[in-house]
């Protein structure tokens, strides 16, 4: 754990006026041993962490400290200090973590700052002092280092368990050596040698021998120095640490050179070169490994980014597929909808077409019948007029009267037919004015019957209007008149001479008023009756050949009554007469 490297170099003018460099390496030798058993301080830290589990940041900082992860240690100790400054003991630990981490990262100013923040009451203040000493040695402030380190020599053996006594002594010796206070240096270094001998720390001993040898060499006490150099060299053979071997060998080489024993010096030099090379090799291997590692990392990184890019591309592709599928589905749905709509409209159109075809056929038939009837009427009028002219020439005035009466009857018939035709057309095109009002049936019947009075008189048909003046219905006046006109016309047409026609109302229903047009005429068969009431058949067959009729009149009646929200029915007995019944809503 304690990686403390201190380069000590001395310049010594030799007799042959040449400079030799003797380098001695201290520290580093404790590393392997410390690795094996956890340092006591670490155990102490572990205990603290377990004790204060609630401080998660402190815990993490402590754990990272033990794991030598300095950056993370810095981060979490900082977090801890921001959060829980008030806990002085933990804060001391945290500052120590930070100071030590900075020291390892060679940020000495920061490290010193952190160490100074630790309260003097801190249990491990002596460790802090040692660390500060090491830092100032790195900065060549030897006096200051001595100020830090000297008090540590008087520490109790209990506290020495937490740090290497030899290190303190070694460092103190080296400091004094640098300050040329050789007495003190000698005192500390010899003590250090003894101490290392006691603890059988070979590595420390090599360093200690090296240091004391250098001290004596510096004092030109070659007799004392050389045995130490040799001892260090001999011991270094038994250790694995290349650095120690290298320095011990170099020191021997310099010593032999100064003794002018060049042969030996050369041997040592060569050995030194060997160790140096091996160190260099090691370094090179490290570097190569490092480069290889970096390269591998880079390769991996490349692979990773490639995979990432691939993934991204895949995701994009998948999304694209998904969206296009959705769009296609939507399109399909919309198409299906419109297709269905089209089929629906087509069906409606077909139905309408059939309906229209049927209506058109009916219309054509109607057209032919109406024109045929009109043609017969006009033809009759023509022949009648010819006879009229003949009779006028022969001054047969009696015959004239009869002929004119006949003509007028024909014209009336034709007029009624045309009138119905007009109203039929108007009804079909819905162009006609239609307004349902409250009407007094009696007056409507009177007004309509008025036109037929001469006709009935001529046929000697008795007419009776027994509708009450109080009967009021809701209907459109003009259409009601058309209905009545047709019913009355039919009644007269189918009445025998001396027959009778009665118009009256039946008030059997509360909401409807039944207007009855009753004649004592020919009547009709049940089939004819049903045919007349049938909605779909426009034209009835002619049952009475000599009487003009298209069925248009009744059809018109039915449509008009329907439009007036009324009902129509027929009661008839063949040979006895017919009742045409129009039911209309009463005025409330």
């Amino acid at each position, binding site marked *: 754990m304690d990686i403390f490297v201190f380069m000590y170099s001395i310049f010594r003018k030799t007799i042959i006026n040449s400079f030799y460099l003797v380098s001695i390496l201290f520290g580093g030798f404790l590393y392997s041993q410390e690795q094996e058993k956890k340092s006591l301080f670490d155990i102490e830290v572990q205990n603290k962490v377990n004790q204060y589990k609630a401080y998660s940041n402190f815990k993490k900082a402590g754990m990272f400290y033990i794991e030598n992860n300095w950056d993370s240690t810095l981060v979490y100790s900082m977090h801890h200090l921001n959060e829980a400054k008030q806990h002085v003991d933990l804060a001391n630990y945290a500052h120590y973590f930070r100071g030590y981490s900075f020291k390892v990262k060679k940020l000495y100013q920061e490290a010193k700052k952190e160490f100074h923040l630790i309260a003097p009451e801190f249990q491990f203040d002596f460790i802090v002092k040692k660390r500060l000493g090491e830092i100032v040695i790195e900065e060549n402030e030897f006096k200051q280092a001595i100020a830090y380190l000297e008090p540590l020599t008087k520490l109790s053996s209990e506290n020495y368990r937490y740090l290497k006594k030899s290190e303190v002594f070694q460092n103190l010796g080296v400091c004094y050596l640098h300050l040329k206070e050789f007495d003190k240096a000698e005192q500390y270094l010899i003590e250090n040698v003894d101490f290392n001998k006691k603890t059988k720390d070979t590595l420390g001993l090599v360093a200690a021998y090296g240091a004391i040898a250098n001290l004596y060499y510096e004092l030109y006490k070659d007799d004392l120095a050389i045995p130490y150099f040799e001892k260090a060299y001999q011991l270094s053979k038994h250790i694995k640490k290349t650095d120690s071997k290298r320095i011990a060998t170099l020191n021997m080489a310099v010593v032999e050179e100064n003794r002018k024993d060049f042969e030996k010096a050369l041997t040592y030099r060569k050995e030194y070169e060997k160790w140096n090379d091996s160190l260099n090799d090691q370094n090179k291997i490290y570097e190569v490994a490092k480069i290889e590692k970096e390269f591998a990392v880079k390769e991996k990184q490349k692979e990773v980014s490639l995979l990432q890019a691939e993934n991204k591309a895949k995701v994009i592709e998948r999304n694209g597929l998904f969206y296009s599928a959705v769009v296609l589905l939507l399109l399909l749905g919309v198409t299906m909808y419109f297709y269905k709509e089209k089929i629906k409209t087509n069906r409606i159109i077909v139905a309408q077409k059939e309906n229209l075809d049927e209506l058109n056929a009916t219309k054509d038939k109607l057209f032919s019948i109406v024109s045929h009837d009109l043609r017969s009427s006009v033809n009759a009028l023509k022949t009648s007029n010819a006879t009229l002219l003949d009779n006028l020439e022969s001054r047969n005035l009696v015959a004239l009267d009869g002929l004119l009466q006949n003509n007028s009857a024909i014209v009336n018939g034709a007029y009624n037919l045309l009138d119905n035709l007009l109203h039929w057309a*108007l009804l079909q095109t819905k*162009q*006609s*004015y*239609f*307004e349902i009002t409250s009407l*007094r049936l009696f*007056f409507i019947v*009177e*007004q309509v019957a*008025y*036109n037929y009075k001469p006709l009935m008189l001529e046929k000697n048909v008795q007419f009776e209007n027994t509708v009450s*003046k*109080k009967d009021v219905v809701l209907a459109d006046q*003009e259409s009601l*008149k058309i209905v009545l006109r047709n019913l009355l016309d039919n009644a007269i047409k189918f009445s025998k001479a001396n027959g009778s026609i009665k118009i009256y109302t039946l008030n059997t229903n509360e909401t409807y008023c039944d207007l009855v047009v009753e004649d004592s005429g020919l009547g009709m068969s049940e089939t004819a009756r049903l045919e007349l009431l049938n909605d779909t058949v426009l034209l009835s067959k002619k049952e009475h050949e000599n009487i003009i009729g298209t069925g248009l009149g009744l059809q018109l009646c039915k449509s008009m009554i329907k439009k007036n929200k009324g009902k129509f029915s027929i009661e008839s007995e063949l040979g006895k007469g017919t009742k045409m019944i129009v039911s209309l809503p009463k005025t409330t």
Partner: protein
Amino acid sequence: MDHVNVLIVEDTPSESSALTAVLKANSYNIVGVATSFKTALEMFYANKIDIVVIDIFLNGNPDGISFAETINASPGASKPFVFLTSSTDRQIFERAKLTQPFSYLMKPFNELEILYALEMAVEKFYTQTDVFLGDEEDTIISKEYLFIKKGKSLKKALIADIIYIEVEEKYCNIITEKEKFVILISLTKMLKLLDGSVFLRTHRNYIVNSEKIMEIVPADNLIVLAGNHKVTLSENYKDILKKLPTLK
């Protein structure tokens, strides 16, 4: 009773002459026959007219409607009218219908229909419907005239000419300076429609035209009227004396 004055607006001579004949036969007085919008207006304002019969189409244009709109627009001058038309064209009817009150007659029409239409027009115009059609009443009261149905036709009597009215059950005897006739109308309706400041009830059965009062003899409970008609003034109705302007 006087004949009702009718103005005919009709451009077809054959139709107007037929109409004139029918109306004359039913004792209507034909004031004139106008054949255009302009002459119709002139005749309308120059004569005292009671009813107008209007053909919708004059020389191919629906000027009849314009005429009706014009007379309807002059307040006080408007009179009952009937449209004549041979067309049931809806658009024309919709426009004609705006000239309230709206009565029409489809051509061709018979005598009953035209008479009925005239009566309906009068009823609608004075907003006293179901008078001529039912059996209970036969008189419509306007501001100036009583229109009375006599047989198939209409007659009128100037309200200002009435001296007094004597009520006998559902009949009312109307006594004027010249004549005396009976109409069918309820007393309550009579009182409601006559000008209350002029016609005063003096007795359960008498309504008197205050303009025609010559003398009041309270001691005998007697009112002497023009033409030396005498009417009883009952105790219950003596309050009316306060309403009359009397010399002191």
